[in-house]
């Protein structure tokens, strides 16, 4: 739902770094997105094509690297990976858990032509 705002941020950051590197073109953009971020890749790509027009990032390809959601149990200290729905600790069934990965939402790198 908020992919437009997010896509605008991606464009802003990528353009800033491209300008600093005196790039003539950005060819690829590498994003790292945790599975807990409520971001739809297709939706970002859709907005990307629209808003990157007439910028140094026009036609740059977006690459999405997804990071699985990993939780740690506060009672038995074991870690587990979420596969879909949020579940209590599969080892001791405690509901007291903490998210340790899956929130990532980073622009990792860009590839440019000079």
């Amino acid at each position: 739902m908020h992919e437009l705002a997010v896509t605008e941020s991606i464009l802003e950051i990528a353009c800033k770094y491209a300008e600093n590197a005196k790039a003539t073109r950005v060819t690829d953009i590498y994003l790292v997105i945790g599975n807990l971020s409520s971001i739809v890749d297709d939706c970002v790509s859709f907005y990307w094509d629209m808003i990157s027009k007439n910028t140094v990032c026009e036609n740059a390809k977006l690459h999405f690297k997804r990071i699985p959601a990993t939780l740690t149990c506060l009672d038995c200290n074991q870690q587990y990976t979420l596969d879909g729905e949020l579940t209590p600790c599969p080892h001791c069934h405690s509901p007291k858990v903490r998210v340790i990965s899956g929130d990532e939402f980073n622009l990792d790198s860009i590839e440019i032509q000079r």
Partner: protein
Amino acid sequence: MNENRIKIVEKILNANERIAEQNRRRLDASGTYGINLMASPGAGKTTFILATIDALLDDNIQIGVIEGDTAPVTIDSDKISAAGMPVVQINTGGECHLDALMVEGALDQLQLETIDLLIVENVGNLICPAAFDLGMHSKIVIASVPEGDDKPYKYPNIYRGLDVLIINKIDLLPYLDFDMGYFSKGVEMLNPDVKIFAVSSKTGEGMDRWHDWLKAKLTMRA
């Protein structure tokens, strides 16, 4: 590494987070305690705010409200104004959430040094507001029982990192199949330390515990 590959590793919402931090410092400087109040449409956010204003009237606590709405209607802000409190409305122009920059603009329109408690009523939505820090001191979600007991499982992001959860409209519990145990387990899973208040803004049931918590927070800062 390919010399045309530029490593960045920047949070995509970094700009928002920087402005949020500025907002927080501004509130700190004026001694204002800020709350980001989030909920689905119809959970009772405005009624809850009005009931809170009403209850704190005798305590000489000045409350300011920022109303986020996607449409340019002043239904909610008119109610706050009628209660005698300063209110600023943000029309997001269809956007599904408030962000730190919008709130920064609203802060400019309030006399912050006269406001003890600032409540930001976010756009009614359980998805997008979760991603945007506004620079308040606490995040509060209102869940109303007619929404169903499965919401923490279906919208985990908004139910995470909460300071307070308000379970509203408990006067309707006799008419609904709302399993409080199942609901609470889902919330606890995401926030072992969350404070939960079960209330009815309409009848006032349970509201005194929430008011006590809020007053204690404000006293601690004063």
